[in-house]
């Protein structure tokens, strides 16, 4: 039986390639569709606010940090629940 994404989309924004790849492996194993980005700027340039998705972003990144990315999404009123890694316990709904 093949892995067919069916639960929804998860955006992963992290500048560490290993963390991105492993999160993709983990979430695809749970039938999520995963889109990875190596920076917040790249994510914002390709983010589609109409898509139902959630976001996992690294707090510490070169350039825009995960918290700043969350602020940008909140100010843009994008309905994308987001969580910051490594502090994944916090989840903010814009």
């Amino acid at each position, binding site marked *: 039986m093949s892995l067919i994404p069916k639960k929804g989309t998860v955006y992963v924004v992290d500048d560490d390639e290993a963390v991105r790849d*492993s*999160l993709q*492996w*983990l979430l695809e*194993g749970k039938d999520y569709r995963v889109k990875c980005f190596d920076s917040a700027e790249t994510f914002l340039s390709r983010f589609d606010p109409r898509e139902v998705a959630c976001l996992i972003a690294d707090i*510490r990144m070169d350039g825009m940090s995960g918290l700043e990315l969350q602020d940008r999404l909140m100010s843009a009123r994008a309905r994308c629940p987001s969580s910051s890694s490594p502090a994944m316990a916090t989840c903010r709904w814009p």
Partner: protein
Amino acid sequence: VLEGLDAAVSVLSVQQAELLFANRSYRLWFGADARGHAQLAGEPSPTLRERGRRHAMESLGGLPTTELTEAGADSTRGATSSAAQVVRRAHALPAVDRRPAGADAHRHRHHGAPQCRAAGRRHQAERAQVTSRLVTMGEMASSVAHELNQPLTAITNYCNGMITRVRNDHLEGRPAAALEKTARQAQRAGQIIHRIRAFVKRSEPQRQPVAGGRSSRTRSTWPASSCGAATWRSHTYVAQRLPAMLVDPILIEQVLLNLVKNAAEAIDNAKLPPSSGATSNCAWCRGTPRRRGHHRVHGDRHGPRPARRGDRPDVRGILLDQGRRPGHRTVAVPLIIESHRGRIKAQNLYNGEPSWLPFLVHDAGRYPRSEAEPTATAPPTPPPSS
């Protein structure tokens, strides 16, 4: 560190007057009461709220302009008895989640005979040294933990993904590749540990008398050669008659190189226009009165700042480690400073990132002044062409 202090330290949310943190002494004195400090000082509780409002109106948008331990913080005194005085330090600061908060510290100061006061001062100085070392160790531990966290997180994710696939009988695909990646991440974590252990094993640096400021003179020209020197200039100041230091010159130059490299990258990333007139100033001078017997490595910058906070990295810290991406650099620098019995003072930049200001111990008593730099202020020399 805060937990072990004799002073009662608390952090309160300004808006809700909610107790965000309380150390052991505070809990001992006031329990879970958020108004403990205000009661002890005989003030009404809205003090923090007022202070938060005042900071919010400042140009820095509420970010701290002073540090809790510096004399610039709000300080009040009150007497609890004829022999004791309570000294209170208060400070507004942004919490991690950007809620405005206020930090309060209370400690008892006892009056008595001069001998007792001197002994008390010595005791306090010893405690301050221990605390400072603990702070440095904490910084190191934090950096190491962050660097180790990445491969460990990846290993956890790969393994959990594998478990999910095994349970769901979804093992077709690329399990072998995932296992190989897991092994690579374990090796990566092992390399980090090996690097740190190898560094720590070199416990005793090869100390020798080094003229104060010599390292700064040789290294401060480095950024100009490797980063966009067309947009900014570098100036070096070395104070006169600096005592010689008993240090490992190679390790200290490594510290300077790392710090200057970070600063150069920060300036370069700011992408200032060539006409900006930005100048990086590197100063090597004696420690502050509170840090006699230390050399202070200080950096600052003149020129326009990036237009908006968050758009570009702040370039204020010239010789300060930006700490934006803790890695080998941010692990090695405190280790070297610590191995020289120096101190690193953590402070916040305007963008909220931590930066470190190193202090180095000199040994003026054992090494004659003639070995130190005779005079000051060498202009930056052109970088060697390579």
